[in-house]
């Protein structure tokens, strides 16, 4: 809780003949984050070299390339497939690779070639049809235009009819806002004729190499394309059938070979000498015992493993979250900002609790909550793993909170539920609600300011806690701690002064006591002293920080967005209902006519568009503002982040097993 996973730094050394066994075991456990070895003259590592890949690396890589190319042809991807229930034993995959891969590859290559050649032919025929098109107005055989020895044939488009000065025979017909012109001129007059033609704006087009009239040929090509398209469809069908047949095998091969390649390349990250190797890396402390004993048994005790001391602040320790299941999805929101540093206070649990509350406070509406819940449930089909699924889980929690707040606020898509709001009323005076007493805006603003005050105080206190834990005891640490305490004092000092001057709902009433000094009463004086001490505390940490003093007020007021954004969302919902139902649908229902039915449909469309828009705004408003309050107002008070992500060597196997 509130801590990242404790890590141990392990040093594994053995003779080179144990290399493969050690690597295999490390890969299987999937817990060892390898620290890359860099050749240097550091003490104890002089003369060590980067290791060579294990034998078989290039064969596995070559096979993997083949598998990937087949996967590409069939459109299979291991990422896109969910984990299968029945895992294939690796020995069986190995056998099938030897026995069947050749045939599968040949099939795939043949299908892909067939598909490609069909597609090319279709494309070729389509170009020919396009080339024939201008000649469809020419009724004679196209072959007759070619093969003259003493004549030259010109074919092309002109905008207006042309007459040539040289002896000629000419065909001309209207074609697509222009004219097709075919002129036959004797060879000796060709140059002269060409000049005259170009002078008249003649655009030459090639005469297609076809036997028959253009019309006949076009019909023939169109028939051919239809036939080829049918063939193409059949080939695509066969490809899909092959894909279905082989997908499971292909992803299993992919997984097996990827594992082999990764294992074979692992020694590139180790330090080696002639006869031995040394691997250094990070392992979660609670996995050390299991890994050690398995390594010992895999190598028959011929391995030396020791835990190395490290400095949690100076060394770049990889960071892995250590949270209860409830908070795991929220780790995604933390990663977007930054992963905590090792040994730093991990606020994931706080975010996982407070974020849904903020979201519900803003978008407290049973209807929208149910819509979001359903939407999330539907999207779950497409986002099965990774950050997308985590985001959906976060939004599921947020939607549930939204429903709970909606019950309290008594809201369903902007309508009132059959009971009065509990605690806070957000119903605005719109339409038939105009008689109500309006929303408790001031109450909400003060309440949200309170949330801000407490949240920020918590943030500052966490900074003090972090400093006391992560920094070395000494003058610098005390300065930071007193500086943060100064911020808290200054904020509460300002609050005391405000309370002593004004009466506010939900706030202690300290006004009305006799003034002691310069119009301030006793509480005001106490507040002023707290503020002064706070400013001194901030200043002794860093004078520049004093520039940030106005943020005490602005950051607290920033939390009033919880009230303001929420009310604007309610306003949009209620206005939509007012326009769609009270202005358009109700008057028509009272006096039904044909036009009225159309208007009612328009009203329904307005209703749907309005609420769709408001749902989208609700996700943006509720989600973005809630997370922003965490990122900007809360995290800036204490959170450093910038931890290195823990990337263990190995892989969770989805399709194969030993």
């Amino acid at each position: 809780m509130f801590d990242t996973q404790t890590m141990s730094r392990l040093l594994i050394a053995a003779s080179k003949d144990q290399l493969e066994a050690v690597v295999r075991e490390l890969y299987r456990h999937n817990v060892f984050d390898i620290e890359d070895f860099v050749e240097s003259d550091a003490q104890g590592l002089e003369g060590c070299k980067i290791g060579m890949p294990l034998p078989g690396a290039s064969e596995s890589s070559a096979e993997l390339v083949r598998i990937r190319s087949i996967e590409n042809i069939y459109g299979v991807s291991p990422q896109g497939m969910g984990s299968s229930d029945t895992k294939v034993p690796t020995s069986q995959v190995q056998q099938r690779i030897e026995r069947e891969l050749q045939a599968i590859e040949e099939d795939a290559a043949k299908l892909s070639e067939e598909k490609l050649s069909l597609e090319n032919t279709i494309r070729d025929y389509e170009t020919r049809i396009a080339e024939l098109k201008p000649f469809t107005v020419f009724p004679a055989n196209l072959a007759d235009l070619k093969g003259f020895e003493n004549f030259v044939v010109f074919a092309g488009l002109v905008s207006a009819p042309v007459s040539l000065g040289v002896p000629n025979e000419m065909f001309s017909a209207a074609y697509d806002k222009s004219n097709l012109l075919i002129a036959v001129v004797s060879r000796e007059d060709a140059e002269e004729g060409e000049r005259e033609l170009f002078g008249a704006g003649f655009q030459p087009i090639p005469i297609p190499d076809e036997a028959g009239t253009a019309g006949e040929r076009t019909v023939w090509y169109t028939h051919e394309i239809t036939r080829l398209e049918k063939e193409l469809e059949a080939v695509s069908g066969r490809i899909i059938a092959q894909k279905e047949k082989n997908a499971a095998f292909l992803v299993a091969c992919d997984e097996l070979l990827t594992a082999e390649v990764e294992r074979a390349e692992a020694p590139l990250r180790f330090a080696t000498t002639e006869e031995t190797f040394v691997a250094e890396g990070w392992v979660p402390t609670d996995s050390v015992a299991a890994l050690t004993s398995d390594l010992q048994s895999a190598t028959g005790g011929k391995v030396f493993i020791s835990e190395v001391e490290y400095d949690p602040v100076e060394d770049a320790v990889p960071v892995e979250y250590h949270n209860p299941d409830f908070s795991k999805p929220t780790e995604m929101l933390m990663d977007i900002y930054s992963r905590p540093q090792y040994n730093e206070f991990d606020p994931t649990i706080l975010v996982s609790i407070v974020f849904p509350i903020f979201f519900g406070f803003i978008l407290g509406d049973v209807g929208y909550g149910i819509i979001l819940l359903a939407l999330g449930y539907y999207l779950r089909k497409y986002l099965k793993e990774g950050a997308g699924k985590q985001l959906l889980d976060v939004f599921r929690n947020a939607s549930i909170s939204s429903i709970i707040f909606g019950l309290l606020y008594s809201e369903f898509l902007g309508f009132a539920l059959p009971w009065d709001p509990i605690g806070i009323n957000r119903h605005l005076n719109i339409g038939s609600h105009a008689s109500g007493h309006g929303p408790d805006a001031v109450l909400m603003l003060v309440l949200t300011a309170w949330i801000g005050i407490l949240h920020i105080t918590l943030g500052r206190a966490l900074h003090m806690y972090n400093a006391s834990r992560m920094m070395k005891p000494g003058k610098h640490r005390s300065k930071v701690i007193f500086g943060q305490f100064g911020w808290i004092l200054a904020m509460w000092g300002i609050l005391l002064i405000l309370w002593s001057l004004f009466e506010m709902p939900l706030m202690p009433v300290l006004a009305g006591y006799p003034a002691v000094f310069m119009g301030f009463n006793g509480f005001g004086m106490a507040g002023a002293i707290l503020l002064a001490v706070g400013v001194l505390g901030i200043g002794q940490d860093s004078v520049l920080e004093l520039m940030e003093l106005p943020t005490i007020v602005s950051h607290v007021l920033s939390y009033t967005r919880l009230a303001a954004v929420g009310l604007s969302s309610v306003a949009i919902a209620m206005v939509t209902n007012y326009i769609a139902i009270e202005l358009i649908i109700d008057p028509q229902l009272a006096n039904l006519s044909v036009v009225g039915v159309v208007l009612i449909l328009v009203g329904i469309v307005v209703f749907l568009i309005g609420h769709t828009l408001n749902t989208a705004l609700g996700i943006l408003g509720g989600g973005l503002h809630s997370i922003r309050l965490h990122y900007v107002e809360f995290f800036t008070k204490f959170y450093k982040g910038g931890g290195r992500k823990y990337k263990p060597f190995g892989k969770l196997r989805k399709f194969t097993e030993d």
Partner: protein
Amino acid sequence: MVVETMTIEVAEASAVGFKAIGAGLAVGLAGMGTGLAQLGIGGAAVGATAENKEMFGLALLFTVIPETVVIFGLVIALLLLF
């Protein structure tokens, strides 16, 4: 003429109207201010994210900082109206 028609009721009604205008101005002008500020930040943030996906969180953070301004406008408007 104007002085004669200015009864207490009229004065009260126009006070409500002026409040509404004030509320509108508060949200509208604050919104424009936020928009102007986000114009530059947003463009730079999208650019940075396109270069390096890991910048997304930080870019989002920078982009939403000016949002506070429009929220202040909205809060003032709410205080004026209710």
